[in-house]
């Protein structure tokens, strides 16, 4: 074994250690706020009660059991898991970055021996892991029990998980691009609310995309937002042709294409913008 090779291996291990350290720090930080987590869980349950009664009333008034290929159960699973995914995927990149710029801390992050995008992503990974265990998994189990086997249990769960990881990456890239825009505008609240509104509406998180009128649905089809919520949930519910290999691969393919496009665009945008960053003090 040449010394060169051991060096590469050592470096690799160091990198992995570094990434794991970031993840672990995130987990510790989330555990700090145990009471907060409990309150969030409870409030989420109440929120789901609201969603349940609203859609029950809607379906009762509709007169038919299936609307646009979605039964009441499908809609409920879709919306509840969309909410759970929302909690799981939620990142505060925009807020954190703007605060880091205001306080000047961003300089320290930029000087770290790691690419800023990568550093940000891995710092959030711990929170994601905790959110997944504390929020997504319990919700998922409750939904499975309540709907009594409406979720098909099989390989679709694994395909769903793969799709969720893609969704995480798409979401991260959208966040990074929006955060980069904030470097220019000095406006965080405004940019963030625009992003949140657009993502929640056009990704199907507030109303399943199946209910959208055709004209709007056609536009949404060509936007990246549906890759965050609609695609994983369609795969789980075996809609949109995802119960066949061809359909499944095309859905994954769309997600991957969006990851590539958004991360290339995001990296270029970030590299261009970071030169213009103005930090007062710090």
């Amino acid at each position, binding site marked *: 074994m040449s010394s060169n090779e051991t060096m590469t291996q050592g470096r690799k291990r160091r990198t992995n250690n570094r990434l794991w350290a970031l993840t672990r720090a995130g987990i510790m930080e989330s555990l700090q706020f145990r009471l907060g987590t409990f309150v969030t869980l409870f409030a989420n349950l109440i929120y789901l009660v609201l969603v349940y009664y609203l859609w029950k009333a809607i379906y009762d008034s509709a007169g038919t059991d299936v609307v646009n290929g979605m039964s009441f159960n499908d809609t409920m699973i879709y919306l509840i898991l969309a909410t759970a995914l929302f909690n799981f995927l939620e990142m505060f990149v925009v807020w954190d970055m703007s605060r880091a710029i205001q306080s000047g801390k961003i300089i320290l992050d930029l000087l770290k021996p790691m690419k800023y995008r990568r550093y940000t992503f891995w710092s959030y990974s711990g929170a994601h892991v905790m959110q997944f265990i504390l929020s997504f998994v319990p919700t998922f189990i409750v939904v499975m029990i309540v709907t009594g086997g409406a979720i098909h249990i099989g390989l679709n769960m694994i395909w769903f998980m793969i799709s969720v990881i893609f969704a995480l990456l798409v979401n991260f890239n959208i966040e990074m691009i929006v955060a980069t825009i904030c470097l220019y505008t000095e406006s965080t609240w405004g940019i963030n609310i*625009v992003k949140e509104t*657009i993502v929640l509406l056009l990704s199907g998180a507030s109303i399943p995309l199946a209910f959208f009128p055709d004209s709007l649905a056609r536009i949404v089809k060509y936007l990246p937002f549906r890759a965050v919520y609609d695609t994983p949930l369609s795969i789980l519910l075996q809609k949109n042709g995802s119960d066949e290999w061809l359909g499944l691969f095309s859905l994954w393919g769309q997600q991957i294409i969006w990851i590539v496009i958004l991360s290339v665009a995001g990296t270029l945008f970030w590299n261009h913008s970071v030169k213009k960053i103005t930090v007062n003090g710090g």
Partner: protein
Amino acid sequence: MGDDRILNAGSGGGVSGFSGGVGNGEKGINGANGGSAGTLAEGRRRGLGFYVRIYRKILVQDLKSKMSYRADFIISTIGMIMTNLAGFLTFMILFGRFPSINGWDYHHMLFLYAFSLIALTPVQCFFDNNWNLRFMVQSGDFIKYCFRPVNVFFYFMSEVFDVKGLGQLAFGVGTLIYAWNKIGLGVSVVIILKLIVYLMTASLFMIAIMNAAAATCFWIQGSGYVMVIMFRFKDFAKYPASIFSSVFKFVFTFIIPIAFIAYYPSLVLLQPDSVPLLSWLSPLIGLLFFWLSYKFWMLGVRKYDFTGS
């Protein structure tokens, strides 16, 4: 944000920002500067007029500082309009597929929606500083509010006036007038008075919810989630409370009172022949909720004092 500039606790520069405007003869401001015992005692006897005057002064300063961040101001306003449009689009998509919900047709639902938008304006405009509370408490900056001879709650809330809420108000009024015409409610002095009283009632409930949610930060760390979730609950205020089963109807009426933000108050206008008792009583209940949330908030302030941070 720029707000800190105006009201730096105790520091001369900050106070001059509005003592110049008020004039040195004003007792309250002198109290803020010097904090002598005599002016403090007088502070107890201050009436509404004093508070209105102070509010106006602080408001002007706040608007000035907002205007200096022009890009932020414009983008935030656009953002607010976008949220309202998205909310409206959600509404349209839903009613494009489903003609009625629980016996409520399109125009009646539109009425509820517009009613809730208007009722949510005061909390947006006057009580927006609640969102900053947890940062202030965590960083310790909150202590500055406790050193002034004015009501802490009043002083804290007066610091931010959110102009963006006015866009929502315009949007809501336009929609309400449209729905009003379509339902054919007619116009008379009595009905307009009723509308105003019950809109104010409705807004009291949302203010109470947000006050209580914000005040949790005195006890819980990371309480931002509580506010975010409570703020999301309000999206359901625009649906009739009759969709809930009895248990949850109780919950959303008396514990998290979102049913009062649009449903109960607007029944007074929409079903004048069979108004439930709760609708008539809602102004009183609204005042009670507001008072409770205020007490809860102030309890948090007292607790904050005791930690001595």
